[in-house]
């Protein structure tokens, strides 16, 4: 009886997964994000931004007179990413997939899309390796992991050293990072670049994400008395790290994050204590004057729609998802004329948007297939943000800055007095 029921359910599911809606009126695109599992929050946050890009496009008339519809795939694990990519391409028939927040998922899923010659539009994953595989149909509009280091290092030279009244090369720099793919490559890239420029690294402390206690890491950092700590955690680790730093009275003149420190959840978890912490990230929240009028308009509309839907300002991941998807929708697809992967490829490679031309603030120019970093947006760059009392703002470089950097960070005692 049970077996019959189970097999009926299976048949029903097969049937349902076959059913697709009225294909004539809509254009289907695939979506791959982790909606469940340890990256569920981030996957969902980012997808919200991507979805609004679709909404905005549909409101403006869609593409070639048709509305865009998303077919979603849940990349809980790497194997699920492969399966979902297969399903979206071969069962749902999509020619283009947007995804995936996570470098691991992107790596796994794009092996499949490249085989099928389907366009993979990566809006967030930063692993350098993703665009070092010589893939022809993989495009990443976003920064790569080394870009955070490329922003942090000159920031240290130009702003931090003078603020701390020390010679940059004499500053004591330590890194701490969660030991999965994301944390490791971001911290590695920063360390490599820093060492090339002559910075003095006094220690590196990987920890396991989700660790229930980070006191040993903090105690070790405390013992080293660093001037700068570069941290690459996931949000839950950041909350624990900074809370425990407060408990253990770990003072550091500059705590600078490698991306995720800007994600939503950090402020909710840490409240006012997050003030003065810096973060290397894409130019979200940058000075609107640095954007072209068109980009500015798009960004404002996006924020309006997000606010109306969810009642809050959009989190950084949503902005990233939106802006990088918008590049596809505004600049690439109209030029391509259809979803045919060859046409989209050509259009993408022909794109050349100047700095300030996207909602994120950077320009877009994809490296050609012969390049070592084929498919990567060569014009993407990172900036430095700092948490102020009223939000996270770009503080460097000056061109994009909305506020001035305030360094060194006050000590915990000084914070308590405020």
């Amino acid at each position, binding site marked *: 009886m*049970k077996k019959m029921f189970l097999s009926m359910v299976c048949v029903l599911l097969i049937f349902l*997964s076959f059913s697709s809606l009225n294909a004539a009126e809509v254009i289907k695109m695939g979506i791959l994000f982790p909606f469940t599992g340890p990256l569920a929050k981030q996957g969902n946050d980012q997808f919200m931004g991507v979805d609004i890009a679709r909404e905005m496009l549909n409101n403006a008339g869609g593409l070639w007179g048709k509305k865009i519809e998303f077919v979603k795939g849940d990349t809980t694990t*790497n194997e699920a990413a492969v399966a979902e990519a297969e399903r979206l391409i071969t069962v749902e028939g999509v020619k283009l997939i947007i995804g995936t927040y996570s470098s*691991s998922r992107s790596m796994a899923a794009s*092996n499949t899309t490249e085989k099928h010659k389907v366009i993979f539009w990566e809006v967030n994953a930063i692993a350098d*390796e993703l665009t070092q*595989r010589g893939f022809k149909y993989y495009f990443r509009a976003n920064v790569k992991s080394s870009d955070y280091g490329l922003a942090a290092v000159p920031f240290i030279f130009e702003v931090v050293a003078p603020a701390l009244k020390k010679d940059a090369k004499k500053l004591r720099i330590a890194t701490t990072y969660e*030991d*999965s793919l994301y944390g490791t490559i971001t911290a590695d890239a920063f360390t490599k670049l820093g060492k090339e420029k002559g910075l003095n690294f006094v220690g590196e402390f990987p920890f396991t994400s989700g660790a229930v206690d980070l006191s040993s890491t903090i105690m070790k950092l405390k013992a080293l008395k660093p001037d700068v700590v570069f941290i690459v955690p996931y949000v839950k680790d950041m909350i624990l790290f900074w809370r425990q730093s407060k408990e253990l009275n770990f003072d550091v003149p500059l705590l600078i994050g490698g991306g995720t420190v800007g994600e939503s959840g950090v402020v909710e978890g840490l409240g006012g204590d997050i003030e003065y912490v810096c973060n290397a990230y894409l130019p979200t929240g940058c000075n609107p004057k640095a954007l072209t009028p068109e980009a500015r308009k798009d960004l404002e509309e996006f924020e309006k729609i997000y606010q109306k839907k969810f009642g809050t300002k959009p989190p950084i991941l949503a902005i990233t998802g939106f802006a990088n998807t918008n590049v596809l929708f505004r600049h690439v697809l109209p030029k391509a004329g259809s979803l045919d992967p060859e046409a989209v490829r050509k259009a993408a490679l022909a794109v050349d948007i100047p700095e300030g031309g996207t909602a994120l603030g950077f320009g877009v120019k994809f490296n050609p297939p012969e390049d070592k970093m084929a498919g990567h947006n060569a014009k993407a760059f990172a900036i430095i943000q700092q948490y102020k009392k009223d939000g996270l703002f770009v503080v460097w470089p000056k061109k994009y800055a909305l506020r001035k950097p305030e360094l060194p960070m006050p000590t915990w005692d000084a914070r308590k007095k405020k």
Partner: protein
Amino acid sequence: MISDLTQRIFHLKYLKFYLISTLFGLLALLPLLIRGPFYSHILIMIFLHAAAAASWNLIGGYAGQLSLGHAAFYGIGAYTSTLLFVQWGISPWLGMLVGGGVAAVVAGLFSFPCFKLRGPFFTLATIAFGEVVRILAIYFRGLTRGAIGITIPFRPGIENLMFHGKMAYCYFALVTMMTVFFVSFLIERSRFGYYLVALRGDEDAAQALGVNTTMCKLMAMMLSAFFTAICGTFAAQYVLFIEPISEFSIDRSILFALISIIGGIGTAAGPIIGSFILTPLQEFLRAWLGGQYQGLHIFIYGCILIAVVMLLPEGVIVWVRTFVKRITYYVNIS
């Protein structure tokens, strides 16, 4: 005379043989019948999970030692063959055997002192073991590239165990599954198998009768680790990307045990049945609901799991056996 011949051929005692051969024939045809890369992918996953679960079954089912650390062997297989291939260009065919060997040795060394642990204590030790291997794999970055993982360059060709399209993978997975099935089948009917049944039922009594229970458990464990590692190699050659957090995850260990248990633990066909039920269930639930409602598909999967465990504590194979018995009975009457 013809009816005489017919009577002989269709004799009852060959019925089981006919049923089983038909089933095998169907299985062999499945990769050809299933069309569409997504469905072929699911079939590959079914075969792969069945093979891994059947390997687990050698120690978990036949020997009754519930291990929840088998992902360690799976990962050892994946990493050994991948490192040999990526660093020195050694064919995964050879790498697979080396990986299996390494896993077997590691399994032997670790489990030997642990065999004196009974019941849940053995299980807890294997869980800890699995975690230790995972942490070490991340820590020794020089050896394993750590959390960054390893991408396997796609160079199709049978010598590299990489293929265009899904069909070849399907058949390879099928062959692996059938191999472990036959190994289980042979063990069942061997003296070794009887020893295992004895020690599973009552270890002290078996020992009293002169069965070297430790050696038996050791053999079963090493065999189990060997085949699990081979499954790991195959998976690596298929997904083309490995990282410690996926290969060594405890969820994977639980899955291997779960498939065998749902299908029928300690039987040769159990893992296969279990995989044909659980793998498509997981995939289709995710395909149907995964995009729409966060978490709902795994929630339903969990509920179904609870239901199946409660309704069929001995596994689905109990039904299959009853079914076969009924057919045999009816044929007998007619």
